[in-house]
């Protein structure tokens, strides 16, 4: 693919006779220490399987499935962590607790609504941007255009949430600007409201929408668009009939990713929200802190959130992505 000379060449070719070759590797693999240990295992069929699969399988079972399994188990216990003199027994009370009080289920509903709003807004806002980068920008400057969008996300969750405060605070940039141009007398309360939470969520997660959309749209062959334009399709027809259906995969995975992330945010509602906007992760968290910690209830609530999120995403995938496109 590349033109030009290798760094070691540097224009003046190096003769093969002057180059250094590795003889250490032979010393290692021909040493008895290697031949009777790793070498022997690598020669043996089941040894190879063990080498390849041993660590990954143990890790994935223990660290990927283990915590979720453990959370499920705890959510069905009457008490945890174990205390002397108290015997934990199997119970469904922790799940029943959730439905017993508005104080518990209301935040989940709120989380759900915020996540849905953030997902919808992100999709509408990010789609044109992804399309622009994938199809309008020339191939040469595409990665630069993409980089400009990625860069702000290296800053991290907390810093980005904090920067939103600069914009929305009572003496923040927006309010000061509105006052300066004479639109308002007194600052509008934007921070610690539903608005600031939604705004912050969108600001936090739009990258997760951008990347799947971009890669889906980028795969649509340009010739297809040209062909349809040739057949007299206007920009809107082209968008509705060709681009949108063909980028469906990107829409589904982008929306799922954004929704799941929004359901699981913890810092944003604490920093940007007020007492009336508390979300479900705060509810769950409260079970794990303070003197009155009730882990099993927290675990049960987390399971409920996990189930609710996954079911929603599953349904969404079925509805939007379910009818498989016929490819031509």
């Amino acid at each position, binding site marked *: 693919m590349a033109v030009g000379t290798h760094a070691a060449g540097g224009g003046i070719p*190096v003769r093969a*006779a002057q*180059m250094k070759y590795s003889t250490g590797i032979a010393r290692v693999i021909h040493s008895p220490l290697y031949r009777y240990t790793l070498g022997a295992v690598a020669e043996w069929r089941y040894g190879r399987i063990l080498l390849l699969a041993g660590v990954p399988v143990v890790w994935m079972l223990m660290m990927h499935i283990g915590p979720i399994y453990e959370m499920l188990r705890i959510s069905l216990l009457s008490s945890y962590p174990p205390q002397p003199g108290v015997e934990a027994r199997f119970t469904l009370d922790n799940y029943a607790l959730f439905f017993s009080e508005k104080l518990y289920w209301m935040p989940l509903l709120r989380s759900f609504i915020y996540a849905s709003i953030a997902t919808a807004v992100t999709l509408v806002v990010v789609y044109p941007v992804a399309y622009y980068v994938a199809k309008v920008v020339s191939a040469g400057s595409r990665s630069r255009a993409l980089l400009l969008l990625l860069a702000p996300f290296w800053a991290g969750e907390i810093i980005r949430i904090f920067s939103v405060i600069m914009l929305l605070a009572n003496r923040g940039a927006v309010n000061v600007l509105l006052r300066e141009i004479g639109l308002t007398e007194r600052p509008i309360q934007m921070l610690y409201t539903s608005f600031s939470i939604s705004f912050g969520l969108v600001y936090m997660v739009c990258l997760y929408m951008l990347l799947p959309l971009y890669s889906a749209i980028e795969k649509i062959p340009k010739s297809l668009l040209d062909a349809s334009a040739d057949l007299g399709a206007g920009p809107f027809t082209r968008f509705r009939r060709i681009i949108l259906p063909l980028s469906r995969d990107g829409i589904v995975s982008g929306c799922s990713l954004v929704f799941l992330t929004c359901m699981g945010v913890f810092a944003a509602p604490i920093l940007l929200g007020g007492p009336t906007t508390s979300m479900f992760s705060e509810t769950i968290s409260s079970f794990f802190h303070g003197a009155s910690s009730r882990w099993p209830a927290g675990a049960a609530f987390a399971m409920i959130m996990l189930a609710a999120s996954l079911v929603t995403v599953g349904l969404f995938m079925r509805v939007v992505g379910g009818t498989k496109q016929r490819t031509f």
Partner: protein
Amino acid sequence: MEPVVQFENVRKSFGSFVAVDNLNLNIERGKFVTLLGPSGCGKSTTLRMLGGFETPTEGRILLSGRDVTMVPPNRRNVNIVFQDYALFPHMTVAKNIAFGLELKGVDQKQIQRRVSELLELVQLQEFASRLPSELSGGQRQRVALMRALAPDPDVLLLDEPLSALDAKLRQTMQIELKAIQEQTGKTFMFVTHDQEEALTMSDTIVVMNNGRIEQMGDPASLYKRPGSAFVATFLGETNLLRSDVVGTDAGEAAVRWNGMTIKASAGALSPKAGDAIYVVLRPEAIQCSAGEPGVANRVKGRIRQRVFKGNHTSLKVEIGEGHLLNALVHPSEVEGLSLDDIWVGWSAEATTLIPSRNAS
């Protein structure tokens, strides 16, 4: 002398599909042997079994007299030149070539000498420190060849290595490959579906079809005396005339085809009158003239198609009603001939008979 490679009753099946069936093959040291056949004929599987990448379902494989049937690829003294070269993209040309030597535990000085020797052989000394991505197709091909030769294998296996090159370069590489084989004296086992490649380079051609050896021999005799209709049609262009034997006489047979009697050399066959048989007649054995030619077989015909191809002219000649013969003649032979009334003729020695039960 003991053969360097021996396949003994080797059979390889994938599920219910039999890729190689009852293969018995001995390869002599220092020969250029080609496995030739259409895709799916089992030639690549044979090569991969010798390389150690497939294990035979039955039978055994001997390399220099040693049973290597169950030996893994890294422990057998054969090396492969892969179809897409498989050069290590992160290593320089010299490092690629040295790879096998480094693993063998050859010392620094010797590796240096061997690598530069090999690069000199293909005139790539200037390219030692280049990466494979900085080479042309032909150069990569040469590096791949040298990398496989470097550890001094008993047999060098080449898996359709020229198929990625363009036609002109392929011809140059054919000559070069043969020259390198002669210079190094190595046993080459070459796999291809291209009959021209096989004819150009090989000492021995093994024609394979449906997992079996169809025929093996040196290129000239295989071309001149094909043992089956498959070999006759696969190796070069041919006219295959289905006929009946009417009589035999001292290594020659008289057969009837299309109302005429053809005298043909019987070859190894001893046909009897009444046998159904194929006559193999190569297009270049046919001569055309205005007057009656003085050869054993001659007949009148009409030229139905004439294509000028520079150093030769390709003809379709109709004999009788609807029987077409392909002929290749020198352009001067057909200059000024009337298209509707010519003589075609060929000698008895130019033809071969093959039994029709082999016809597919």
